[in-house]
């Protein structure tokens, strides 16, 4: 067996480990809070405590994995997946943000969805923003008709949606 000689740790498992430990702390604190007002029978905090323990164990394991010398046979490439196009990712997220904003403000979801559609298409390499905006609006409109009239599901409405 190769024993753990220390080396620069992998960054990702350290971060995951810390997140898991933090989550364990939050779950345990919440469970503690529930426990305090509970006097009879089996407590609803019992399982959260178990889950908190599980999270803590996983967090600790991640830290161990991060600091242990890497076994060449292990598929640790999972922690180093290579470069990513963060601009494309943020474009998609911006699109989702637009939809959220449109609904929060009350502009209705057709305009929000059109923006989501166009921004996502741009993230995927399209350059015809206005065309995509129109396609997105048409698609959102169709789905709105389908959901609203055929399936009687209510979608958030704005001035455009109220016309129909």
């Amino acid at each position: 067996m190769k024993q753990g000689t220390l080396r620069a740790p992998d960054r990702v498992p350290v971060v995951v480990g810390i997140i898991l430990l933090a989550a364990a702390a939050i779950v345990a604190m919440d469970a503690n809070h529930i426990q305090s007002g509970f006097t009879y029978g089996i407590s609803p905090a019992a399982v959260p405590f178990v889950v908190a323990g599980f999270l803590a164990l996983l967090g600790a394991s991640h830290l161990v994995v991060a600091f242990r010398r890497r076994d060449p046979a292990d598929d640790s490439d999972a922690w180093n997946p290579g470069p990513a196009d963060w601009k494309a990712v943020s474009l998609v997220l911006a699109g989702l943000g637009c939809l959220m904003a449109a609904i929060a403000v009350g502009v209705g979801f057709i305009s929000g969805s059109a923006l989501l559609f166009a921004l996502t298409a741009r993230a995927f390499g399209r350059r015809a923003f206005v065309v995509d905006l129109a396609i997105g609006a048409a698609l959102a409109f169709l789905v709105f008709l389908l959901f609203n009239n055929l399936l009687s599901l209510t979608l958030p409405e704005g001035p455009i949606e109220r016309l129909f």
Partner: protein
Amino acid sequence: MDSLLALGHGFVVAFEPTNLLFAAIGVVLGTAVGVLPGIGPALTVALLLPVTFKLDPGGSLIMFAGIYYGGMYGGSTTAILLNTPGESASVVTALEGNQMARSGRGGPALATAAIGSFVAGTIATFGLAFLAPVLVRLAVNFGPWDYFALMVLAFVTVSATFGSSPLRGLTSLALGLTLGIVGIDQLTGRARLTFGVPQLFDGIEVTTLAVGLFAIGEALYVASRHLYAPEKPIPVKGSLWMTREDWRRSWKPWLRGVGFGFPIGALPAGGAEIPTFLSYTTERRLAKNPEEFGRGAIEGVAGPEAANNASAAGTLVPLLTLGLPTSATAAIMLAGFQQYGLQPGPLLFTKEPALVWGLIASLFIANTMLIILNLPLIGIWVRLLAIPLPWLYAGILVFAAMGTIASDPSVVELAMLVGFGIIGFLMRRYDHPIAPAVVGLILGPMADNQLRRSLQMSLGDPMILLQNPGSATLLAIAALALVAPVLLKGLERFQAQED
């Protein structure tokens, strides 16, 4: 004989014109969405779940079954023609199927996949019809401790035993379990992990998690890696039909595929990856021309596709009889049941026999419709593959967001969807499986309730789990399944050092 009689009644229900219509709509929708690249059956079902919100339970569950089978069918089409399997169970199909398509034999590859799925689905659904009543009779005597132990076993097998890394699988499971705590506790009415946000009182919707992790996560991932670079679908040239030779080489792999798929799917072992992989290696070993494998051997499509479909029917056994989902798709199906206040399990068979058996009968019908509708219509589905990926993913995102706000028109729900999308992206980027999180979310609260019921009966003594032979055995198997991969790895390393 009981089964046959009940199944007969089921067919009476399933053959009602409206139900036939629902089955047909489900099959078409399922195929259309499932055929889109990167969308597997789990996501297909999750995306289309909102469409069934306002329909009556019987009809919409039948539609669901159609969506499920259609999604599987569409997934294999994508795997063969585009080499982008929408789910892990189609990975093996893509190996040989895509090679066949490249050498101009795409038609027979699709045909053997479709007919094999039909054969396997039909046999496995018979298996379901006969096995389900037996299990129901057994499950009536299950105590809460047995259910709890079964769920623990499902947790372990879904997350740790068969994945590439137990640590990453268990982390995904932990995410689901933690999210499962959120909301008002069913037994005591206490709010847990809600932080005072009223939208969290009802807990986290399984569909929101599944659509976020699968759809939004996938879109972000594909965007981040520029995976939308032109990969053109291979046009289907020549005859669609299988030659006599193709039939001769296909029928045995189909049957063997059922042999692998159904039992493994029906065990709470989860996932169709194992049976498809087993089927592939077996066919390669048994083939007369093993050198053909890797260059488009029809056995390598026929077997795994049959295994995939048989295991899908197999996962319905624990789902319907025990309420135990062992795959992401089954977890979302369970959420579909729950939206109508139906809890699958032994009680459902006695309380709603028309619904359960109608559903089982409609599986046969959906399967038949798929083969009748889809072989001639393959040209249309192939055209769907040609949608430019920017529009495709943009459309998926719009539809995913809409389904979520249709179920709960609030910004909080949408924010959760986006949050899960980011988590799903990171999980995909760092190679974490997603199914354990979805299964954990839906099974976690159920396991919690069963555990507390057991403890209430034993006045708080956890030894009750080990004193009952059933739960003790199941927990022992779970413990074994947890350490097995580690032991096997150690053994391998040991052998490697011997060499």
